[in-house]
C-alpha cells in the first residue's frame, strides 16, 4: 500500500487504475459489533458552537456571533441559530453582519478558554480510552481497545453520548477508521459510524470539499474545476493534483482514507486538579458555600477515580472581584480519594475561617499523586474489628485545631530530661532505649521551690529526699548546659522528682511520679 505519492497516474490507462478508487465492496450495513481485527477506530467529537459558548450564555433567540481578526477584517467564526436564521453565515465580515442585523450581539473569540474547555473535556474523556487527542477544535478518541470493556460499539457510543450531553455543549460525532475522516465527518455534521476501512471512501465521497480546510485559494480553484465533493477530488490524478494544489494535499487525502499513517499525539492529563465556580450571588457565610464545595469535590472525585490517583493536599481559593483572595489549605496525613472524607475535612477547615468580605469565586486546587500506598487487608478480620479509620481522626483534628495543637511524642537520646523527648508528627516512630526511673509527668519548665529549715518544700510541706542521687551534667556543646543533682522526694501526698542546680544552688521541681 505504501505507494510513492508522486507517482504519475493517467486516468483510464489500462496499466494503472486510479489510485484512490476503492474496489466496490458488496453492499452491507455498517457493523456495530466492532471490527474483528485490531485496527484503530476513531471517535471524533466536534463542538460547532464552542467559540460562542465559552464567551456568552445568551439565550438562543438573540442573534449572536463570535468573531476574530483575519488580516484587515473582522470575520465571523461562529453564529448561533437566531443569527443563522437572519442570514448570517460564518466567514462573513463583521461589518456585513452588523448591516444585516443591527441588534446583533458580537463577541471576540477567546481561544485560550476554548483550549481550556477542550482540555477539560479531554481529561474527562480519558475514562473511556487513554488515547485521547485534541486536534484543532475537535476531540479524537481511539476506541478500538475499549470496545470489549464497554460491551461493544453501540453501548460505548451510548455512554459517551450520555456523558457529552451533560457537558452542555453542542456537539457532533462520527466514528471512522482514520482520525482525519472522523474529524471531517464530525465537522460536516454527518453522524457516520463506519468500522470497515473498505467502506470508508464510499461514505466520504459525497462530503463537500470545503470541509477539508484546504484554504480559500484552493477551494476556489477546485470550484472552478467543478469539483465540489471529496469523491471528485479522489478521482483526480495524483500527479496533477500535487502540481496544481500542493503535495501536502495529497498527503492529507492519503491520511483521510488511511493510505498513509496519521500518527497522533495523545493528550496526557496534567497531574493537577483545578476547577472553579462562579457563585451566583456574593457569599459572606461559609454555610452557603457548602453546595459549591460539594460540587467541586464530586468533580474531583470522578477525576481521581478515572485517573487512579489520589490527593493528600487540597487548596481552596476564595476570591472576590476586587482582588481579595483567601487560601484555605486542607492537609491529609496520607493520600486519599474518598469524597466524603474530603468533604468532612474541608468543612472542618472552613469552620475555622471567618469571611471578612463577600466572595464571588470558589476554586479547588489539588496535586494528584499516582503512587498510592495501599495496604493488603486480611480476609479474616481479627477480633479487634474497629469501625473507624485512625488517619481520618488525625486529619480531622489537625484541620480543625491546627497542626501545632495536635502532635505526637518520641524519645530522643539525650541525658537532659528536657531533651530526652521531643514532639513529632503523630505516629512517627522514634528510637527506643531504657532509662533510669523517670516521672510520668514532666513540668513544662522546672518550678522554683522554697526552702524551709534547709529542706525544699512543696505546698508548704517539707519533702523527704531519697538518698539516691542522679547527677546529670551534659549539654555544654549546645548552649543549654545542665548541671543538676536529681533526687526522688516525697511528702505524705506526692512523689516528685526534684533537682538542685549545681550552678546556683537553687532547688527546682521537675517531675511528678
Amino acid at each position, binding site marked *: 500500500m505504501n505507494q510513492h505519492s508522486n507517482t504519475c497516474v493517467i486516468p483510464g490507462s489500462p496499466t494503472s487504475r486510479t489510485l484512490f478508487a476503492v474496489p466496490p465492496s458488496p453492499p452491507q450495513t455498517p457493523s456495530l459489533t466492532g471490527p474483528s481485527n485490531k485496527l484503530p477506530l476513531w471517535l471524533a467529537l466536534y463542538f460547532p458552537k464552542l467559540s460562542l459558548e465559552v464567551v456568552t450564555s445568551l439565550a438562543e433567540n438573540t442573534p449572536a456571533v463570535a468573531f476574530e481578526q483575519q488580516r484587515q477584517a473582522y470575520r465571523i467564526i461562529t453564529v448561533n441559530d437566531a443569527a443563522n436564521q437572519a442570514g448570517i453565515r460564518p466567514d462573513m465580515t463583521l461589518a456585513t453582519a452588523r448591516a444585516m442585523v443591527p441588534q446583533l450581539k458580537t463577541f471576540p473569540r477567546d481561544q485560550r478558554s476554548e483550549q481550556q474547555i477542550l482540555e477539560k473535556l479531554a481529561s474527562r474523556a480519558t475514562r473511556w480510552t487513554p488515547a485521547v487527542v485534541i486536534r484543532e477544535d475537535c476531540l479524537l478518541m481511539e476506541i478500538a481497545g475499549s470496545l470489549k470493556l464497554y460491551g461493544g460499539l453501540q453501548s460505548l457510543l451510548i455512554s459517551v453520548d450520555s456523558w457529552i450531553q451533560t457537558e452542555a455543549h453542542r456537539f457532533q460525532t462520527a466514528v471512522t477508521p482514520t482520525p482525519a475522516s472522523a474529524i471531517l465527518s464530525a465537522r460536516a455534521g454527518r453522524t457516520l459510524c463506519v468500522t470497515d476501512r473498505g467502506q470508508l471512501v464510499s461514505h466520504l465521497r459525497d462530503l463537500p470539499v470545503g470541509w477539508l480546510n484546504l484554504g480559500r485559494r484552493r477551494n476556489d480553484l477546485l470550484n472552478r474545476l467543478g469539483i465540489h465533493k471529496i469523491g471528485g477530488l479522489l478521482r483526480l490524478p495524483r500527479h496533477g493534483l500535487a502540481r496544481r494544489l500542493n503535495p501536502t494535499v495529497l498527503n492529507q487525502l492519503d491520511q483521510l482514507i488511511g493510505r498513509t499513517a496519521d500518527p497522533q499525539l495523545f493528550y496526557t492529563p496534567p497531574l493537577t486538579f483545578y476547577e472553579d465556580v462562579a457563585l451566583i450571588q456574593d457569599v459572606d457565610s461559609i454555610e452557603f458555600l457548602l453546595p459549591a464545595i460539594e460540587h467541586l469535590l464530586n468533580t474531583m472525585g470522578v477525576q481521581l477515580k478515572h485517573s487512579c490517583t489520589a490527593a493528600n493536599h487540597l487548596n481552596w481559593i476564595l476570591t472576590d472581584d476586587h482582588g481579595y483572595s483567601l487560601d484555605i489549605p486542607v492537609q491529609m496525613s496520607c493520600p486519599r480519594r474518598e469524597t466524603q472524607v474530603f468533604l468532612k475535612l474541608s468543612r472542618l477547615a472552613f469552620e475555622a475561617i471567618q469571611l471578612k468580605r463577600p466572595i464571588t469565586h470558589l476554586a479547588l486546587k489539588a496535586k494528584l499523586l499516582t503512587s498510592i500506598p495501599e495496604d493488603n487487608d486480611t480476609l479474616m478480620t481479627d477480633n479487634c474489628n474497629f469501625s473507624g479509620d485512625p488517619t481520618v481522626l*488525625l486529619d480531622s483534628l489537625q484541620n480543625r485545631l491546627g497542626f501545632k495543637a495536635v502532635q505526637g511524642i518520641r524519645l530522643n537520646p539525650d541525658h537532659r530530661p528536657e531533651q530526652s523527648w521531643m514532639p513529632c508528627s503523630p505516629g*512517627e516512630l522514634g528510637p527506643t532505649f531504657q532509662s533510669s526511673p523517670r516521672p510520668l*509527668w514532666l513540668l513544662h519548665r522546672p518550678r522554683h521551690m522554697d526552702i524551709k529549715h534547709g529542706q525544699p518544700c512543696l505546698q508548704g510541706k517539707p519533702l523527704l529526699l531519697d538518698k539516691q542521687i542522679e547527677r546529670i551534667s551534659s549539654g555544654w556543646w549546645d548552649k543549654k548546659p545542665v548541671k543538676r543533682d536529681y533526687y526522688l522526694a516525697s511528702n505524705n501526698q506526692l512523689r516528685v522528682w526534684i533537682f538542685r542546680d549545681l550552678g546556683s544552688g537553687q532547688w527546682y521541681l521537675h517531675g511528678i511520679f
Partner: protein
Amino acid sequence: MSIESCLNRRDIWRGNRSTITTRSVVPTGFDELDQCLPGGGWPLGAMTEVLVKDINHSPLWLIAPALSVLSKQARWQTWITPPHTPFAPALNDNGIELSRILLVRPSRQQDALWAAEESLRSGGCSVVLFWTQHLGRTPLRRLQLAAERSQTWMICFCTGPAVDPHTSAALRIQCQPDPDGIQLNILKCRGGRSVNNLTLSRRIPVQHIPSDMGCCL
C-alpha cells in the same frame, strides 16, 4: 412463681454481684481494683470520671498499666489538654507505645470538648484522656453517649469539690493521695457497688524489654 424466676427477672438487680459481666473491659493492673469493678477492669465504651484534688497531680501511674494494654491496638491514644508533658521515657518504661499517642492542646475549651467527642465518634481511638477543671452536666452526658457508641475508654480527670453530685459517667472514682499510693472511693459504678477507702500501693513499673532484645534472653 418461684423465687428463682423472680430473681431472674430483668428488672430485678441484686446488689451482691455484678450484673453486667459481658461488657468489655481493660484490666486495671491492680488486682484489688479489678475485684471492685464489674467485669474486672476499666469499662470500655463508657466514661470513667476520676475526681482529683489538684488536676496538676493526676495519678497517671493508676492508669498506666491499662494504657500499656490498650497501646497494643493500632489506634490512637488521645491525650486532650494534659496539665504537664507526659514524659516519654517513663511512658516507654511503662510499656506504652509512644507512636500511638496524640497530644491535643486546643486553645479553647469548646475545641477540647469537640476533640474529645470527635475522637470517641471516629472509632479511631482506643482511649481518650481528658483533663478539665470542670465538666458541665451536658458535655459530660454528650461524652458518655459518644463513648457508649464506641469501643473506646473515655477517662476524664476533673477537680473534686465543685463537682455535680449527679453524673452520667459509668464510673466515678474519687482519689485521695496517700503516702504509699492512693486511696480510692468508687462513688458510682454502673453494674457494681460503691466502695470506700480502697488503698492501692504504687507499683514500680516492670522494666519494659524492647522486642528486638527479647530473643537474646
